């Protein structure tokens, strides 16, 4: 039996329902929530602020520091032990690389911009949801940016090339599965995050990336809308009319 109908009835090029909101954490300089189906990411931005210890400072430009973390009760199955893992460290690192190309940090030598991504509920696609939330939060913090970054996971489940795999699809056992988290800089069409695990042929990979690009342009519009909604509501930068 081949995988020709998605478990939740979506079209191959259809993402799960998306909700995005900017300015959810009052004490952060910028913040956002990004929900994709049952995956929920919160992101908060602090900075530019002083970076210590000093040997970590860069006199040429500000440093971007990302931290990806799953809350202990966020995963399907057993409790996730707090305190980070190899997986969370790697995701933090690739998130940094995904976001860095759009940031203008030259004006903030020796400073750091901290991005904290927290997952209260997960159902695959967490690093992508985290990157989407972080982009909105960075823009919400008023940082100078060339663009926002939009991310989604694409892949192949058995014979179907599809976008935004959920956990049931990622763990499909009836055939090969390829899971490819990808981030786009929509204005230039460039890719700033690309990872993959699973099995896929080169032709399907190209098709998957095209699907990802299309989905990211839709996500990009939702990200912009979230920012506009915050400022249209007169909430101010801190969500309380300040600044």
């Amino acid at each position, binding site marked *: 039996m081949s995988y020709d109908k998605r478990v939740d009835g979506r079209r191959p090029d259809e993402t799960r329902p998306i909700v995005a909101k900017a300015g959810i954490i009052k004490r952060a300089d910028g913040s956002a929530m990004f929900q994709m189906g049952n995956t929920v990411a919160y992101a*908060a931005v602090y900075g530019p602020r002083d970076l210590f210890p000093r040997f970590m400072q860069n006199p040429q430009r500000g440093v971007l520091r990302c931290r990806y973390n799953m809350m202990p*009760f966020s995963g*399907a199955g057993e409790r996730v032990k707090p305190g980070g893992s190899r997986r969370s460290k790697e995701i933090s690192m690739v998130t940094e690389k995904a976001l860095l190309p759009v940031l203008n940090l030259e004006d903030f030598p020796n400073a750091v911009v901290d991005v904290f991504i927290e997952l209260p509920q997960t159902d695959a696609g967490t690093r992508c949801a985290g990157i989407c939330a972080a982009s909105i939060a960075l823009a919400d913090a008023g940082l100078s940016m060339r663009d926002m970054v939009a991310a989604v996971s694409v892949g192949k489940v058995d014979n179907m090339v599809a976008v935004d795999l959920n956990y049931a699809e990622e763990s499909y056992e009836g055939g090969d599965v390829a899971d490819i988290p990808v981030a786009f800089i929509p204005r230039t069409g460039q890719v700033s995050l690309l990872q993959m695990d699973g099995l896929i042929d080169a032709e399907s990979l190209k098709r998957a990336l095209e699907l990802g690009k299309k989905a990211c342009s839709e996500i990009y519009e939702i990200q912009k809308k979230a920012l506009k909604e915050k400022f249209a509501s007169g909430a101010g930068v801190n969500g309380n009319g300040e600044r």
Partner: protein
Amino acid sequence: MNELLKSNILKWLKTGKRYDGRGLEDFRPIVVERGVTKNAEGSARVRIGDTEVIAGVKLSVEKPYPDTPKNGNLMVGAELLPLSNPEFEAGPPNEEAIEVARVVDRGLRESNALDTKKLCLEEGEKVWSVSIDICTINVDGNLLDASALAAVAAIQDARFPGYDGKTVDYKHLTEKRLPMARTPISITVNKLGEFIFVDPSTDEEMIVDARLTVAMTEGKICALQKGGSTPLTIDEIGRMIDLAKAKAGELSVKLK
């Protein structure tokens, strides 16, 4: 800067009001939501003003502690996430996080909120282990009361996962609730000069002389924690406990 803030806040307290317009015995609006995250067996979000925390309950089957072979295990953790506040840093739990976890833990444990005997599956071998994790989303004062409230609400929300004697089936929760025996309430009373008040904002919390967290259940006190570096007189402690008791009803309606 703190001296200026302190004199300003004191000036307000003398008028019988706080600088945000509240009376000394007023909480900010409290909102409790249950079932806020799907993969936890139970969860709750508590907002007190702009302070927001999420508590989640995860259940697993483990070996009981050797000194309590017939009782289930209870564990409370607190993650003061750096996302929620410019002062918090990433890394292992610091003193503040450990204090929050332990104060919430004692409120639950000493009130016998959970009938842990009913969590026993096989004496000395297998018991249900209840892990409650508190994660901060936005910290704007009075984290202790918000955390304690969220922990209890999350336990109320929790249901057992399926269990066939060998493996836990997290995908299918049963209708069975945790064996709750009591509903403890924690209220922290703060002292500045001759004034005592509840539910401090970040600014107030920064300059208070001392605080006393009072955990109560069914009219009795079940745990205490004094914080802050200024000592208290017995008379002050009495007044602080009286205020906590007077406010308990207001919080316990949120747990109905």
